[in-house]
């Protein structure tokens, strides 16, 4: 099992979600997040005072998939979330040791 954490542009959430559902991903967790990578922030003006905002609104997706689904899922995310400009986000992948379904104690891949 692999966990995919993808930080993407908020405007791309729907496209990414649809692409993942299409390849058969059944569940995901989405969080509104703020952050930045190499992308610089922007400036805001309130009554003439300048404020630089370097933590930008992002959406973070977390999903755990079977090993054989990993590449398909990554492709789905990158294809749907890419605009080609700085600030498109990042994907992190890590191994998952165990998954447990709270409802009935099912363990492993069946719990996904």
């Amino acid at each position: 099992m692999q966990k995919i954490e993808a930080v993407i542009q908020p405007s791309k959430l729907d496209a990414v979600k649809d692409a993942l559902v299409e390849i058969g991903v059944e569940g995901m967790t989405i969080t509104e997040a703020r952050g930045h990578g190499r992308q610089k922030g922007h400036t805001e003006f309130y009554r003439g005072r300048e404020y630089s905002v370097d933590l930008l609104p992002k959406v973070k997706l977390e999903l755990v998939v079977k090993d054989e689904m990993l590449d398909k899922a990554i492709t789905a995310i990158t294809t749907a979330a890419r605009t080609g400009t700085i600030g498109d986000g990042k994907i992190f992948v890590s191994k998952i040791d165990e998954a447990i379904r709270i409802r009935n104690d099912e363990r492993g891949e069946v719990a996904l």
Partner: protein
Amino acid sequence: MRLRAAKVFLSFLFVLIFGGSVLCGSVAMAQTPATAQTDRIAALEKRADENAAAIAAAQTAGDNGWMLVSAALVLMMSGPGLALFYGGLVRKKNILGTMMQTFAMMAVITVLWGLLTYSLAFSSGNAFIGGLHNMFLHGVGLMPDKAYAATIPLQTFMIYQMMFAIITPALITGAFAERMKFSAMVVFMVLWSIIVYSPMAHMVWGQGGFLSVSGRFPCLDFAGGTVVHVTSGVSALVTAIYLGKRIGYPKIPMPPHSVVLSFVGACMLWVGWFGFNAGSALSAGTLATSAFVATQFGAAAAVIGWTAVEWIRQGKPSALGAISGAVAGLVAITPAAGFVSPMSALWIGLIAGAFCYTMVVKVKSWFGYDDSLDAFGVHGAGGTLGALLTGLFANSAINPVFGAGKATGLFEGNWRQLFHQAFGVGLAWTISIVGTLIILFLVDKTIGLRVSEEDERVGLDLSQHGEEGYDWAH
């Protein structure tokens, strides 16, 4: 045939009645001619008196209806209007603290007004301050007082003026936002109402006031440019300087936490301002309409004035800029509404929008004081400007305040008025600076003005009130 018979019968009846009454009448006249005439005159007089009373009652009903609505509108300017406007501009850890400062005025000043300050402001006294004989609202009943408003109950006048006494100190809270002790704030405001507001209101609006229309230096102030905005704005500046900057200002960013709340608040202020300005006619007649119209044009033009300058200088027209412009325009038109034409109101608004932008954005950073929510930049500066422009634009065709056909403002040829306006403004500045400094000193030495450094970091919500405006956990 039957018709003819009926006609004859009717003619006979008519002759009988008419003849009889003439006969009786002449007999009566022959007996006591004077008595009958007196009776008739008495009856007519009674009817005339009844009519006059009915007309007066109808006018009172109309005027009183508008004035009660106006009083409610002005209260709405404080809470929720100003509370939301200021609340949105602070950081989120201070929203309840900021809103409570305005709300506390709605309670504390109301009580104080009944006990003491109405009397100090409006009972007859000397040229500078009222007496004490209306304390506890003694003698403030339901009959009109012709010296103030001939057609509304004196209690209506009293409660309407109370709403002004509430919002004026509430405006000052914008200058010391996010760092003043709640207890110190309450004591400061009570003293300020007595020492600064009451004499200023008496001088401009009170019987025999020094700056009133019939006074020594008639300073035209229709709805409170000097009494409300100059006093609160200048006191705000003094307070901001005396208290010092917020911790971290201006290095730590302190942007408004919700321009949305401020937006809603500003729109309520705009609507409530019709009660403030048009209500200051103290009747529902043509003068109220004139002030109402000027208010709308002044506010609208100031939005355009502020936004235009901001757009040119910063490249974008901001929502906060637009609503700040509206408030600046409303402030500037406050003394002028009821004296100026709609087109003059446009000029006043346009100038005020651009001027207050400069005060808030440029002048504040030149001098470096932390007038946190720009109470001085908008109310002090806008009020001063509006009072002076009233001296230019006031027109006897709108309000012949010095008598029919007598020139009112400078553009009409009464150059002296500009001097009188400047004198009134100067006096308001002086009283505000001196009074506020004394009060700040007293409160600072007894209670202490500022919250502790730790309390300031935690925020006023938690440190002063033991609660939080936004609970993210539930």
